[in-house]
């Protein structure tokens, strides 16, 4: 075999492994890649300035000039959608990173030490579970003011127990496996065993859960923006766009609210599909 395809295969291999030959998952992955590219290169690819006002096009519907029409202020919906992907993806990304790290730490610590540590951490997670995430976010907005910061902190805290609970149960299972016990018998410290052996082996499953969480976090953050607690107009954000577009709906223009709504649904579904696919693959690997 020649060197070039091997090189390319190595680059694409992780992606191919995630799809596992499933066309739907492949499509979801393509959607996610397109979204990320759109977010990164937004200034280059968006047809208009997202904040530029073209009053002649107000609520125009789809035209060659404005493919997804323009909103009630005459701003290009497609361009706002593309720029909206930036806050739309950045927020959940931070939520997922923080909640995953936090949840893994809590979950693994609870599983590894057991006893009192486990009880305290588990009760703490239940406490957070019982507190409505949106309410927490609204309270934090009162402290930090509107913007992305408060919702991201609130969602990170709210999502950490989901990761933590999963991490705890998987780590408990993994901890009982003989290979972990063999390392104990070898004389390694608990810290080294956890970091070098336990975490890498449970990580794929946790990351699968985090990918699914990404979609939910995106939806929650959009909801906060919609309610006016998150990203503020005129910054383009999908949740805020639905809010602004809602009044346009009454005037018969569906696109300004519908387009971001569809974008949210597609993104959430795509993340769920990819997450489930990773989880399935991990489960299948476990079986062997």
């Amino acid at each position, binding site marked *: 075999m020649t060197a070039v395809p091997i090189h390319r295969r190595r680059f694409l291999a992780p992606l191919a492994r995630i799809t596992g030959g499933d066309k739907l998952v492949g499509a979801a992955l393509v959607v996610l890649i397109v979204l990320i590219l759109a977010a990164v290169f937004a200034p280059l690819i968006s047809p208009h300035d997202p904040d530029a006002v073209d009053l002649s096009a107000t609520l125009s519907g789809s035209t060659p000039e404005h493919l997804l029409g323009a909103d009630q202020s005459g701003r290009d919906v497609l361009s706002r959608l593309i720029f909206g992907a930036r806050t739309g993806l950045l927020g959940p990304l931070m939520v997922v990173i923080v909640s995953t790290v936090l949840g893994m730490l809590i979950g693994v610590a609870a599983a590894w030490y057991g006893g009192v540590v486990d009880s305290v951490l588990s009760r703490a997670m239940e406490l957070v579970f019982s507190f409505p995430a949106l309410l927490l976010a609204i309270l934090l907005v009162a402290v930090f003011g509107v913007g992305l910061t408060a919702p991201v902190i609130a969602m990170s805290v709210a999502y950490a127990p989901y990761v933590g609970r999963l991490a705890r149960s998987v780590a408990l299972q993994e901890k009982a*496996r*003989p*290979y972990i*016990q*063999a*390392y*104990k*018998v*070898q*004389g*390694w*410290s608990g810290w080294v065993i956890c970091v070098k*052996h336990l975490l*890498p*082996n449970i990580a794929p499953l946790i990351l699968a859960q985090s990918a699914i969480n990404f979609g939910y976090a995106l939806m929650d953050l959009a909801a906060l923006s919609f309610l006016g607690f998150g990203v503020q107009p005129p910054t383009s954000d999908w949740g805020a766009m639905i809010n602004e577009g809602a009044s346009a709906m009454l005037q018969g223009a569906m696109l300004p609210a519908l387009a971001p709504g569809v974008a949210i649904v597609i993104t959430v579904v795509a993340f769920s599909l990819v997450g489930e696919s990773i989880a399935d693959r991990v489960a299948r690997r476990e079986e*062997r």
Partner: protein
Amino acid sequence: MTEYALEVENLRKSFGGHVAVDDVSFSLKPGGSLAIVGESGSGKTTTARMLVGLERPDSGRIRVVGRDRSNAARGKATRLARARELQMVFQDPYLSLDPRVSVAQCVEEPLRLHFGMSPRERRARRDELLERVGLGEREADALPRRLSGGQRQRVAIARALATEPKVLILDEATAALDVSIQAQILDLLAEIRRDTGVGYLFVTHNLALVRHIADDILVLYQGRVVESGPTRDVLAAPEHPYTRLLLHSVPRPGWDPAQIAADRRALATALREARAPSAAAEPARHDPDAAPTRRSVTP
């Protein structure tokens, strides 16, 4: 007094209200081979786990080459010293290796932890260990999932030997292997014992196996030692009914499972009846029959 490689006195462990290991004592001479035999729930695995520090005994003493290890290890030095005395090979070859660590790494890890070797010395020692268990360079680079059950168990043995322990605990180490492979591993273990003088503690329920691998035997039933002594004597003339039951349970031509089933029920009934009246006065230490722990390995 002889220095024993492993000495266990009055070991006891209970989980909740259930006594898993009750007053178990035995010892193992350097380079000796002892089998702890019993069925699940007999306390044999719990005993093994206490020896390597995976469970903490409620009471009793464990000494390896004279050094006490009954209490939790404090500090790194103690932990490492203990790991160099006693190692363990687990039953399931599919779960006892980290799936993400290559065979070579798996054997090098304990070398790195325990000995201040240069990378070159370490590689040389690793190759020596792998060769010792019959694995070559091709297997060394592989991840565990590329290996068969027998090969994985060889890796586990090499890994356990890396710290040069005085005693190796083999917890049903061949039970999950194919018969033709099990015999290979037994051959290998015998060879290693001959060459290195390591002592073996087998944990198993297979008496036919014990006959060929262990000098001495310790039969556990419901957490207690019911019979012990040289394997040859105990198997030739078992004195405790439970030992006899275990012996008869090994399938062979002309085997009568119905009789064994009847014996098993009779034994359980006898035990229940013997325990019930004495329970109020004094906890029943031994089984109803006249000759429980007649032979003991302890001096």
